[in-house]
């Protein structure tokens, strides 16, 4: 039945408007959703990639930052 409805769908030009409304709704929803987030959580999440202790020498031409742990597998 759905196939029949679609086969004879005459208002295909309205797809643009429908899609635009869909987009605006989703985008607005996402912005509102985001605004409701607690700042403390966002700040904490933003720090996830960072090391707990600030990298003392982050530049590649300085000494490496990875510690050599005893018993670590080396090649």
């Amino acid at each position, binding site marked *: 039945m759905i*196939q029949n409805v*679609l*086969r004879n*769908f005459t208002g*295909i*030009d309205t*797809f*643009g408007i*429908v*899609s*635009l409304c*869909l*987009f605006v709704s*989703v*985008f607005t929803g*996402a*912005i509102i*959703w*985001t*605004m*409701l*987030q*607690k700042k*403390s*959580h*966002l*700040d*904490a*999440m*933003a*720090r*996830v*990639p*960072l090391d*707990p202790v*600030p*990298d003392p020498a*982050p*530049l*590649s*031409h*300085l*000494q*490496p*930052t*990875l510690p*050599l*742990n005893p018993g*670590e*597998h*080396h*090649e």
Partner: protein
Amino acid sequence: MSATALPQDNAGLRAHRTGPIETFKYDNHVVRAFAIATALWGLIGTSAGLLAACQLFWPQLNLDTPFTTFGRIRPLHTNAVIFAFVGNGMFCGIYYSLQRLCKARMFSDLLSWINFWGWQAIIVGAAITLPLGLTTSKEYAELEWPIDIAIAVIWVAFTINLLGTIARRREKHMYVAIWFYIATAITVAILHIFNSLEVPASAFKSYSIYAGVQDALVQWWYGHNAVAFFLTTPYLGMMYYFLPKAANRPVFSYRLSIIHFWGLIFIYIWAGPHHLLYTALPDWAQSLGMVFSIMLVAPSWGGMLNGLLTLRGAWDKVRQEPMLKFMVVAVTAYGMATLEGPMLAIKSVNALSHYTDWTIAHVHTGALGWNGFLTFSLLYWLVPRLYNTKLWSVKLANYHFWIGLLGMMFYVVPLYTSGVTQGLMWKQFTSDGFLQYPNFLETVIRLIPMHQLRAVGGTLYITGIVLMIINLHRTMKAGRFIGDEEDQAPALNPAASRESMKLGHRWLEGVPVTFTVLTTVAVVIGGLIEIVPMFLIKENVPTIASVKPYTPLECLGRDVYIREGCVGCHSQMVRPFRSETERYGEYSKAGEFVYDHPFLWGSKRTGPDLHRVGGKYPDAWHFNHMENPRNTSPGSIMPSYPWLLSQRLDTTVVGVRLRALRRVGVPYTDDDILNAPQSIDAQSKKIVTALAGQSITNAPPDREIIAIIAYLQRLGTDIKSMPTNAPAAAVAASLNHNQPQP
């Protein structure tokens, strides 16, 4: 296990980190393997590109062999750069960052290595089959069906490994980079499977199940979103991880990253039809593609600004650190490309830019700048850390940066000039209303200096890659590889981890399954709304009574056309512009392509459009042109195809191919298939007789040249055979969607 001070963050996150401290090891082995593969395939892929670029002003570099012609080298270049260089770079970045963001080793070492070796095998398969002419001809999806299946299997292995690692994570909430990785895994799988649906005719020959307009829509839904979800989303994830790491400061706005993610994945999938503006694609689909492409600026620039503003207060580091220099240029190039893309998707701009070098310049701003420089940035950051040493030469890395940047400029600026020149020359009329440059070759010759400059840019860029490989190799030699890197993290506390379902984004970040489902829904909506009506609504592809399936000889000729990659330089889509109808003839209608499996509309006109070439020249012209294009068109840059005159046409495959085409919907009858050999003989003799009458007396009837002449002479001729009183109704129906422009 020992008590360890926890990072100072908010109480919510701390609550999940109260489990016992666990010690575990990250797998760096597979990361190193992908890093090495990235660098090597980068060199190979760009070198293939340089060869293709040089062939465009120095046709002798085609070497007059089938395997080295532009039509086969170009897809080799694009596949090598996209899937080998960027693909390995993507896996390298994901395998490194995912483990650290999840505080867990990869789910399965076995799956990691299946992913690595399987991917390399696929690339080698592509490197062998594409020069052999085994291709589907669909851009960025040229690989034939056995390799398509292999890609699906390896991609599933990667996805299981990704999701398995996320399931074993010790961080409750998934960081933004992981969202982009999930979107990549899911969407690429969907795109690849649906665009690769084809019926095999032999071990390395298949026909797309879609035809004409529908095939075009599915292909560019795939093609555009391959850019989105293979070249963009994984790299955005990597940007969100490696940029804060290198700058040693958190991302500028985590709130913005949430909007960036959902906005981007929801909108991107709709934008595919902007590759088909002014074609026979129905107007409603073109409009959707255009509007959503313009909207795409918002999330894309949100992401770019988020990246660049992360460096606020840290620009002094950019001066000292080559890795950050590469990253800044990469993110800037992302911003430029994602502003330019929507501009090119505006119909009036697209009318000038499409089919020209402008598109190539646009693509390379993204490929060389965004993907290339971000990959170099990643490698310069990773390799010293994997080897617990410092970079061998910062000076050499800086040379790489400047040479690469100069190379990029020398690449794109001439091509932008070339594209605009090309577009304007095609459209220029004299004051008397005639085409100013009626001979297509005039534009080709005008562009040669720009193509030469582009090759200089490519050479510089490759020189930079060589410097990087030397630098990284020396770095590896100087350090000691840490294969299994130890780390500690508290286990997730199951009780504290059970967060109440508040339907906030924070909750969603902690439930990967729900997150994956929502991501899938977001990316599927656009595809469904665009593609389903195209298949079901009859008025989208009005049939034209006089359009018939190809004869067996034409069908084999079409396969030769596909094998030689002619679609890389010749479109088969006359757009409804006066400048095009004057040059080529009647503009193309959707109903003319209903038997085209696959469609061959093309995306670039290095040579002229061929949709109305049927009957335009005598058979002898095609014969001489294929033998050596300079015989008929002095100054032409088209490769010679002497082997078409000597290679025997394999007619034994015709039955199986017609049957495969029948399976995808072409109405060949049993009699058509049974009598195919006789039909081929009869049509070949007719062409040979015509050739003899045009002073080519030595043409043997059983060579490939005869089949390709048959195909070319058929192109676009079906509507010419419509009864004179019929076109008004039949053609008008098919013209509803694309009215001619003044």
